[in-house]
């Protein structure tokens, strides 16, 4: 039993990576029109899913601009 708990603990530590968005970075991103509004809506909610969604949106904007 003890061995199983250690494994679980180790797995949680490796997977529990929070998405942190740098404010300076986000200010530099130009999200026109409704994309900007979507970004604002995502950043207004402080949870993992919304932070990750915002990060994805940054990535997509950067991809499209390239």
């Amino acid at each position, binding site marked *: 039993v003890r*061995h199983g708990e250690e494994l679980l603990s180790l797995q949680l530590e490796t997977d529990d990576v929070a998405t942190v968005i740098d404010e300076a970075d986000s200010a530099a991103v130009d999200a026109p029109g409704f994309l900007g509004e*979507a970004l604002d809506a995502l950043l207004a909610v402080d949870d993992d899913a919304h932070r990750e969604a915002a990060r994805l*949106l940054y990535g997509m904007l950067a991809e499209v601009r390239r």
Partner: protein
Amino acid sequence: VILERIAVRNFRGVREAVFDGLSTKLCLFYGPNESGKSTLVEALHFALFERAAGQAQHKRDLQTWGGTEAPEVEVTFVDDAGERWHVEKRFVVQPRTVLSGRNVVLNDDAAEGKLRAIFGTREGTNRGVAPTDLGIWPLLWVRQGTSGIATKDALTAEARDALSTTLAAQTGVVAAGPIGQAVRELVARAYAEHWTSTGRENRELRAVVEAAEAAERARDDLHERWLAAQGIADELVRRRDEADGLDARVRDQQVVVREAAARADAARDARRALEVADREVELARQQVEQAERAHAERVATDEALAESVRRHDVAGQAAAEAERRLAEADARRRTARAAADAAEQRAVAARRVVDRVQRRAERERLQVEQADLRSTIAQAEAAEKGVRAHADSLAALPLRRTDVEKLEHLVQLRDRARDRLEAASARVVVTAVAPVSVDGQPLAAGDTIELVVAAPRTLALGDVATIRISPGGADVDVLAGQLARHGADLAAALAAADVPDLATARARLEQRLRLERLREEEAAKLSVLAKDGMHPLRERLARVEARLAAIDAHDEALPSVDEALVAKDAAEAALVVAQAEARTADEQLGKVQEAAYEARGELRRQADEVARLRGRLDGLGDASVLAAAVESARKVHGDAVVARQAHARAFQAAGGDEAEKVLVDMQAALDRLDVRRREAREDVVRLQAAIEERSEAGLYDQWQDAVAEAIARRGAADAARRRAEARRVLHEAVERAYRAMRDRFAGPVRDAVEDWVRILFPGSSLALDDDGDVIGLRTVGVERSAGGAGVVETFDQLSGGAREQFGVLVRLGIAKVLAEGRRLPVILDDALVNSDAERRGRMVEVLRRASEHLQVLVLTCHDEDFDRLAAPWQREVRGRPGRRAVASGFDA
């Protein structure tokens, strides 16, 4: 832009036509088909959008058929800045363009360039301008037959850009453009990696999650198995010890059960002996009761017989007394009955005397009535005779009061006529101075005679003179005639009345009146005496006389009526008393007879009872024998009770009822212990088998491997879920923002058109697609589906009429949005040919409202449908351009 004036010359068959002073709101051009309305629109197009230079076919087609003159067109308009411009163009023959403004005149290319700048169009090719070159204008100028084309298709890219720019400026919304669309597509792709189109987890995501759940189930299963193997050995030891302990306890309990069984047998024997003693006691008690009952019955019957003999004696005495009273009552009754009969005979005799006395009194009364009736009849007959005599006298005097009044009137008339004649006559007074004769009548001196002359007359005064007197002239004759006529009338009336004069007539009338009074007096007397005539009186007399004849006239010595009545009353009172006494005697006799009957019955009953009791005593034994039997039975019962008490003590000494219960409880306890011992033994066998089965190696290692696998799978599933959730959140946020932007973008067009849509299509609203384009009509309330969004009929699904109305409507709305407070000319060239009159009427209302914002030019062959448009500017377009050289209507 506002159009003010259009003029054409030699343009497609039109020699010359001028339309000026156009309204800034509504202009109505009307005329039949082929009258040249569309030519007018064509001329505007060439004036504002086509270059004048060049000889391309589409320009040569503008020439009138068979003519050589250059087609020319002039247009005056005001631009958005408020500056008025005048453009003149000539085509084919020495083509040229002149554009003149307030301070400037431009020619040819410069003029064409300025026009393109004002109208926002592009230069076309040699074959002319294409719709894509004309910006918004193809949308606003609806050519004949094009109103039914979807606005989405009618919007060129330029028009769409212009609309988009205008909407962005009006709504403050920044269109994300191509970047926005590209990002939307990426977001949709990322979403589709994890989710289905209906928002459920897709197969891949579901597989990862299900794999984690399966690994966890396998881990838990192994864990349970391992835990189970750990516990089995401990359980085996515990259960074996328990089974050994239970063996010893079962043995001890078996000894206890055997002892309890021995005690229970002894108690059962004692109980059986006790039950026999109980039955013997009960039998002896019943025999005692039986002997006591027989003895008691003998004693009670003896007492009842003695009482019955006493009552019989009493009843015999009462019967003798009753018989004696009966004889007495019968004697009293006979005496009373005889007295009553004698009283009745006396009463009958008294009543007869009263009858005779009353008949005598009636005869006397009838005799008086007979005399009265005879007297009355005699008087009545005398009165009747008088009435008849007076009637005869009156018949001899026929003169009535009216006849006399008529005679009096005629006498008055005659007297008045005579008076008037006398008044008209001359009065001549002759006084003699000396003796003289007047008409032969001598007159002494100093004498005087007076003459009344009623008719012309000549008087002779002796021999001396004649005097002619003519009185009254002609009137005297008339008056004399009247007098003679009245006199004749009077004489005729007197003759008719058979009287010599008025006085006689009055005397006769007086006599008649007196006779009438006498007749009435007699008649009144008669009516008093014989009110109903003579006949009833005579009948009544006959009845009285008949009654008198019927009553015997015995002159016997009778008392007076009062004495007879007193004697009769006394006799009847005595009779009542005697009858009452007889009834009383009858009643007393009845009562005594009843009492005697009762006494005889009671005597018989008591005799029967004595006989019955004596018979019963004969069936019972002797009293002393019965008493001895009672004593014997009581002794036997006492012995039986003593014997039973000895058996009861023996039963209690053996444990009583409790001994049996103790045996049952002890046996049950032994059974329970035995069951537990068997179960423990079986568990021991089962656990030993399980230990042998699980002795294989590796269960622990398998469990540990499963733990590691489950952790890895769960981690992968959680990560996949987090990724999927982030994509879902992203997709929702982007789509929500996009829809919001689209709604805000579409807002101005919708606002511009919604009121008009309600007029034309009540109950419907605009349907927009995802890009905000108008695609058709949404009718809410028909079907609640897709979140209550209603049913959408796309442009293509609408009928031909509805399509052209809808097309015009949306064009007006877009024009209103694009105008942004300025005015733009909208041209509708027979744009509603497929619409019925009712819909055209509604469309007129829409156009009237649209003209508040736009300059609307309507060209129609149905001007009667547009009366309610009340266009301030209306002109008829006449002529057949292309067929005739001159269209007179164009000379307006």
